[in-house]
């Protein structure tokens, strides 16, 4: 469905994407994770033909992107993070306008409008001026506009930002239904639990490169079974930082918690010896399955708020 090979995009001397490779299969929900400046937005912009790239190959629907941009765009939709519609128009006028500029007419127009409205539960709001909608309703309209051309690929850039949990659940459920229609969804979000909830596959990007990619469940099992969280009685962060440098795979999660991943008996024994020598007492050691958030922090060294 999407094949990216050695894609390089530079802004001056800085490489936003550096020989980036990725393959996304049809009919899955694919999560794109990475800290700010990792290259997520650049990647989505390139896939939508909104940003040019210097090197590499991008193929969508087995068609080279550069030569077939118009054709590819007709089968894709980009749902931006911002509410990209007209607040002074009603819901219906907005949908009619975006259908109109895509030359969707006649019977297809009615079908497209019906589908976009029903999937996003917009029927009761159809004649409301968009400015008067709630945050969640506006997000649903933003998504509905993306569905008008019945796309095969949908790019979502943080579609649930700033809305209440109920509306967020609604939207996530809607996105999950796209998979049943064999559509491919590329999804970026600040919320790890959303990615865990709806994505089949995930790529974690940092500094313009993929640092981990795969099926989410497999990735968490593989990384999580091999990790340990060590809770300590209070000690100074400076000492922990010093210790973390001496043990491979050890990270300081907070002033009294360490994460060891991957762990094995040899590394664990070494860590415990060092802690004893430093007179730091261990409160608890937990061997547990890793959350996506912990994995993300582990791999990128970033807190969630930086994503």
């Amino acid at each position, binding site marked *: 469905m999407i094949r990216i090979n050695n894609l390089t995009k530079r802004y001056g001397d800085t490489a936003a994407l550096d020989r980036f490779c990725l393959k996304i299969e049809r009919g899955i929900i694919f999560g794109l994770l990475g800290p700010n400046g990792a290259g997520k937005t650049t990647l989505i912009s390139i896939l939508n033909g*909104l940003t040019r790239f210097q090197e590499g190959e991008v193929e969508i629907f087995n068609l080279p992107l550069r030569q077939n941009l118009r054709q590819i765009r007709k089968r894709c939709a*980009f749902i931006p993070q911002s*509410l*990209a519609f*007209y607040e002074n128009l009603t819901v219906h006028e907005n949908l009619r*306008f975006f*259908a109109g*500029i895509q030359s969707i007419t006649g019977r297809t127009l009615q079908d497209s409008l019906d589908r976009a409205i029903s999937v996003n539960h917009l029927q009761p709001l159809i004649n409301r001026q968009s400015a008067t909608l709630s945050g969640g309703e506006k997000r649903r309209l933003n998504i509905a506009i993306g569905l008008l051309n019945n796309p095969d690929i949908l790019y979502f850039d943080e579609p649930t930002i700033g809305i209440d949990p109920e509306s967020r659940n609604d939207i996530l459920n809607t996105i999950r239904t796209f998979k049943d229609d064999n559509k491919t969804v590329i999804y970026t979000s600040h919320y790890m639990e959303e990615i865990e909830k709806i994505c089949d596959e995930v790529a974690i990007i940092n500094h313009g490169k993929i640092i981990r990619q795969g099926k989410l469940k497999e990735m968490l099992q593989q990384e999580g079974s091999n990790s340990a969280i060590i809770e300590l009685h209070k000690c100074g962060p400076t000492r922990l930082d010093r210790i973390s440098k001496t043990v491979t795979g050890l990270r300081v999660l907070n002033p009294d918690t360490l994460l060891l991943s991957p762990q094995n008996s040899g590394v664990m024994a070494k860590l415990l010896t060092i802690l004893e020598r430093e007179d730091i007492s261990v409160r608890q050691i937990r061997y547990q399955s890793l959350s996506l958030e912990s994995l993300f922090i582990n791999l990128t060294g970033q807190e969630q708020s930086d994503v």
Partner: protein
Amino acid sequence: MFRAMLKKEFLLIMRDRHALAALFIMPSVFILIMSMALKDTFSSDRAFINYVVIDQDRTAISMELATLLKKNRLLKEYQQHISSKKQLQQALNDDLTFAVTIAVGFSKSLGNENPAVPLTLNVASDVQQNVLRLFEGELTGILMKLRIKALLHKLEPALPGISAKTDARLLDQSSLIQVRFNDLQNSQFPTSTQQSVPSWIVFGMFFIIIPMSTIFISERRQNTLMRMNGMNISIPALFTGKIVPYMVINQIQVLLMVGVGIFIVPLLGAAPLTPGNSVTALLLVSTGLSLAAIGTSMLIAVSVNTVEQATTIGGILNILFGAIGGVMVPKFFMPPAMQSFSIVSPMSWGLEGFLDIFLRGLGPRAVVTESFALAGFGLLMLLLAWGIFARRTGKGL
């Protein structure tokens, strides 16, 4: 696609009360106010020079001089009695402009080869030179008539009846001078409406800068343009979708303001607008002006980042174009250097075009230069806007 874009743009404008006020109400109100305010400036019935005649001679000739001055509709006789030098000085310091003193013996000496008793003209210290020259001219004309009359009386014994034959013709100025305004019919004369309607049409048309650029910037900042770009909307299509509706809005403005000039202004006591004879010429100028205004709007819209910047720059540019181009102060009031400089403002070209149509009653041939200059200016601005926008689009808007 264009239908959708046109409909969207109209709906957005129609729902923006501030934009509607700026585009339609503001210029209409300006036309009404300025037509009323300048009504007397263009009227020949307005007396605005105060004068008094102090007749010490008290003869038929001196009284005739006073009568002839009264006939001039630009002059207004001072109502307060002046009997002393002190009173005269006080009056000249107040609102009296000229005092003509006819000394004893003036009438007698008038027919002499070298009159021994001249008129004395006292002038207020703040009088403008052109007003002084005007009054002097009027006074000289009257003196010449009276002097010729006096000389004819002297010739009466030699040529009986000559005074009676010449009198009527001497006093009838219209038989000597016929005033014709350039390019107007004999019965036509310029009015404040003929001057102010073209000015405020031009100014109002350029006011689309503000709604047009603010809508465009909002679209850009909300990523609506990026979304449209992702839907295969090209820059030419996007620009055309903007240009066409605003051209229609500009034409509606012209119709509305001409209508105000013809139908509403006379209700308030000013002269109605005479719309000229050529719809084609009107279309040429208004289309050229529209392109110039739209081009300027698009250039501002793609160059700045915020709505606040667009409204500030758009407002300043509009007022500057208007002030330089003769919208706020008619060009004939400007000194020659300013009149030459006014050519830098596209509003000046549009104004000249409209004045050709409304004031001078000319047709398409007379306005073709202004129209093409305006269209060229507009296209150049659009081209620049396209270049800047294409660069920004390449960088992800």
